[in-house]
């Protein structure tokens, strides 16, 4: 499969719409084609949203059957990697105390993932206090970083620690709003209720203390000043936190 149209197969591949032989051929191509493999990873996230949107509670009895089956199912051994002579690749999953050998590593990891450059944030001496808060949060063993592009343009990065019940929201590259409008942040709970966590400016960051546990998503909307009690859904960007 070396014809140019092979690159167009990312869509059918992600949707699992390729017949077996074409799927195998495309996977061979994928191993050598960086642009296709990057595209597959992005389109897969979009397709997974279609999956998430039709979530439905399974029959309650299923859990007991699954738990009984795993009790008698041996797990596969891990694949052994060659001990690399190269430096350890930076991991994006939670930043444990162990792996937290300085904020530089964390900053690089997040920036490398295409997100806000925490490095710049760190270098700015005027924001040392905030950096310390961010560093402290990232050093929590359960620290978790999620990031998303916003409908309005720009990105939001949420660093959170359920154990500390604290989150820091970093906004990056958001357009400036007209004088009568404001950005507003929300947290959505499992009962689907949206809770305002206050208004923010286009270049703002926000520390949220308390109320993180049990929340499933961060929302950002554009509202009329001085802010709203109900989110304006047509402007909403949502970043799942679980």
């Amino acid at each position, binding site marked *: 499969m070396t014809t140019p149209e092979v690159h167009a197969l990312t869509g059918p591949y992600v949707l699992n*719409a390729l017949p077996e032989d074409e799927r195998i051929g495309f996977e061979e191509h994928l191993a050598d084609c960086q642009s296709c493999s990057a595209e597959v990873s992005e389109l897969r996230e979009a397709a997974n949203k279609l999956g998430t949107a039709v979530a439905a509670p399974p029959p309650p009895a299923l859990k007991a059957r699954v738990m009984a089956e795993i009790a008698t199912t041996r797990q596969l051994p891990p694949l052994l990697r060659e001990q690399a002579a190269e430096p350890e690749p930076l991991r994006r999953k939670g930043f444990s105390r162990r792996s937290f050998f300085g904020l530089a590593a964390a900053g690089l990891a997040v920036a490398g993932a295409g997100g806000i450059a925490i490095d710049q944030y760190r270098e700015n001496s005027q924001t040392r206090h905030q950096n310390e808060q961010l560093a402290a949060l990232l050093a929590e063993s359960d620290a978790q970083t999620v990031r998303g592009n916003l409908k309005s343009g720009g990105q939001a990065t949420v660093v959170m620690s359920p154990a500390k019940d604290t989150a820091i929201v970093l906004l990056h590259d958001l357009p400036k709003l007209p004088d009568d409008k404001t950005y507003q942040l929300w947290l959505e709970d499992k009962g689907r209720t949206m809770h305002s966590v206050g208004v923010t400016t286009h270049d703002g960051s926000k520390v949220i203390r308390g109320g993180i546990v049990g929340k499933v998503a961060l929302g950002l909307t554009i509202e009329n000043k001085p802010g709203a009690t109900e989110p304006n859904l047509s402007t909403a960007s949502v970043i799942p936190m679980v």
Partner: protein
Amino acid sequence: MSEESTALPWPVIVDAGSGTPADLMARVARGDSAAFAQLYDQMAPRVYGLIRRVLRNPAQSEEVTQDVMVEIWRTATRYDADRGSPTSWILTMAHRRAIDRVRSEQSSTDREQAVAAASSTTEYDEVAETVTTNLEVEQVRHCLGSLTELQRESVTLAYYGGYSYREVAELLDAKLATIKARMRDGLIRLRDCLGVTGR
């Protein structure tokens, strides 16, 4: 940076059992079945909902969901966080299993549900009965609505209907190359509208 140090105006629910999927996956990989039980609670509704949408038959869907959940346990040791989030890994596995079931049934019997499944193109707006957050569902619905009709039908017939691109082309009476292209540009538009990114 503005700072809210006061308590927020809703009670803080301390959920002792909560953990992020990434934390839970790491524990599951070390054989922690309590962590697996938590991961089940977080993921089973998405896995079951997706499989049920594709297969439609509740008993079959339950069976395939069980297979997927056990497979997550069995292969958690091979999960590589560098290659995507646990949610992505799990939903991809669930969708593949559902499609495998569709294809294996297809090779043995005619699909009597073809007509029923073909109507799935209009069902993107009946996603109310879910456990997902309102905003997420609302956004998926909104974003599907922003696709052209051919893009939307190509994407949903494949993803929810479980059809191959050849079958989709047949159903929509379109050229194979056209359908492949609409699946790709439809997903690209969906990605941009949803604001999702890869790793």
